[in-house]
């Protein structure tokens, strides 16, 4: 048979491409459920890690089902807010925001050609009072994203977990792999009222004696300037978008009357009541 015939070549290549495409489409569709389940459990374990319910390695060990159970047990409520800090709608507690949805919201926050609508960004409030919010942005080679957990006061960071698609192993990948880097966030206080909400700085966060100052700065990763800058920008953008929510929801209970053991009459304090509803 003359395999160099033009007609034969065209038919042959068409046929092989169609067969391969059909096979891949079939496999992709039949495995999609399992892949989504894995991704969901991974996302949830990242949120739980940020909120300090355990370490990522522990969650990986106990498996998907146990992670979902733990989340169902701990999550209090989830809802979306807009950039003015107003609640938009409640979220289904069994669903999570995948990195793909975060990417869409990231475009909405930043505006520009890819904007598809007004930003609606998720807030996850756990039963123990910790609030977890996502961040998303561009690293060096691909997207970086993560979750930042806040204490009940909505001012102090309780923990953080970051993930990435393809940052350099051993350097930029440390945002995910280095627990020491993530631990640096604990206790820091983002400046929600300023334009620059949070900083990842070269040369270290200023220290006073031995006690680290808990401000809005942490030390960047050596050898990973681009990833550090990308993460810094992602945190600024997202926490900036949440700033109004945090400032409007938080100070309500900073009044002495609302704190544990605080004195004063809380009844009739509208802000405090709102705060309780929020939680």
């Amino acid at each position, binding site marked *: 048979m003359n395999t160099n015939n033009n007609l034969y070549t065209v038919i042959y290549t068409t046929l*092989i491409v169609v067969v*391969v495409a059909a*096979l891949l489409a079939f496999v992709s569709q039949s495995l999609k459920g399992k892949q989504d389940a*894995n991704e969901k459990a991974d996302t949830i374990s990242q949120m739980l890690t940020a909120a300090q319910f355990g370490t990522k390695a522990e969650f990986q060990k106990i498996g998907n089902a146990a992670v979902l159970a733990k989340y169902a047990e701990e999550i209090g409520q989830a809802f979306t807010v807009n950039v003015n800090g107003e609640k938009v709608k409640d979220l289904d507690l069994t669903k999570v925001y995948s990195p793909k949805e975060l990417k869409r919201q990231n475009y909405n926050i930043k505006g520009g050609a890819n904007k598809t609508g007004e930003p609606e960004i998720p807030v996850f409030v756990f039963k123990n009072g910790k609030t977890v919010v996502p961040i998303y942005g561009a690293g060096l080679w691909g997207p970086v994203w993560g979750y930042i957990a806040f204490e009940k006061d909505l001012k102090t960071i309780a923990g953080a977990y970051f993930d990435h698609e*393809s940052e350099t192993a051993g350097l930029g990948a440390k945002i995910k792999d280095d627990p020491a880097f993530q631990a640096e966030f604990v206790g820091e206080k983002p400046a929600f009222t300023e334009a620059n909400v949070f900083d990842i700085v070269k040369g270290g966060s200023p220290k006073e004696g031995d006690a680290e100052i808990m401000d809005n700065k942490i030390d960047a990763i050596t050898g990973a300037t681009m990833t550090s800058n990308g993460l810094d920008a992602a945190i600024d953008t997202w926490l900036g978008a949440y700033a109004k929510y945090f400032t409007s929801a938080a100070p309500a209970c900073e009044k002495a009357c609302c704190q544990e053991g605080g004195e004063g009459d809380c009844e009739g304090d509208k802000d405090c009541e709102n705060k309780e509803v929020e939680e």
Partner: protein
Amino acid sequence: MDAKLKETILNPIFKGNPITVLVLGICSSLAVTVTMKGALVMALSVIVVTGISSLILSLLRNTIPGRVRIIVQLVVVAMMVILVDQILKSFEATYAIDKQLSVYIGLIITNCIVMGRIEAFALGNKPWPSFLDGVANGAGYGMILLIVAFFRELLGSGTLFGIDILNRFGYVPNNLVILPPFALILLGCIVWVQRSIQKDLQEK
């Protein structure tokens, strides 16, 4: 088993190793050898891709139009790589490792070993020897990967397969070992050892 078939299997493991002798697949062997687990999954993935692509293309070898043979090879190899990636993503046990290997699973398609063996062997040989040739070349690649990963994980993290080996004795993990340049140094050492054993590889 006849001698020729035996040669097909054994040659890529040592005498004609794709990494140390043919110097193919260097990029991924530097990138995925930080941990043993990653190296093992990568090695198995490459074995599956080289073996089955060689088998399929050897079956098709008499029908492939000569002018578009590289394109047909690419389509088949790409299909295999995507299948492997999809399958790794679907299992709980391999999901995390697939995430860690990230782009490198997809980049198997650009691994010169795969296309090299198809061009050099599968298109001119029967399916069974072609399959064995693909598997053996994947195994030769995987073996080097595991040797490099053994030293990098042991010295770079103090662990093997994530199990603490050296850290309990107060070992401080060496960060240089984690970085790709050290993998290249290690690879150089392996080539050195092989060349001093196998004198016929030395240039006069």
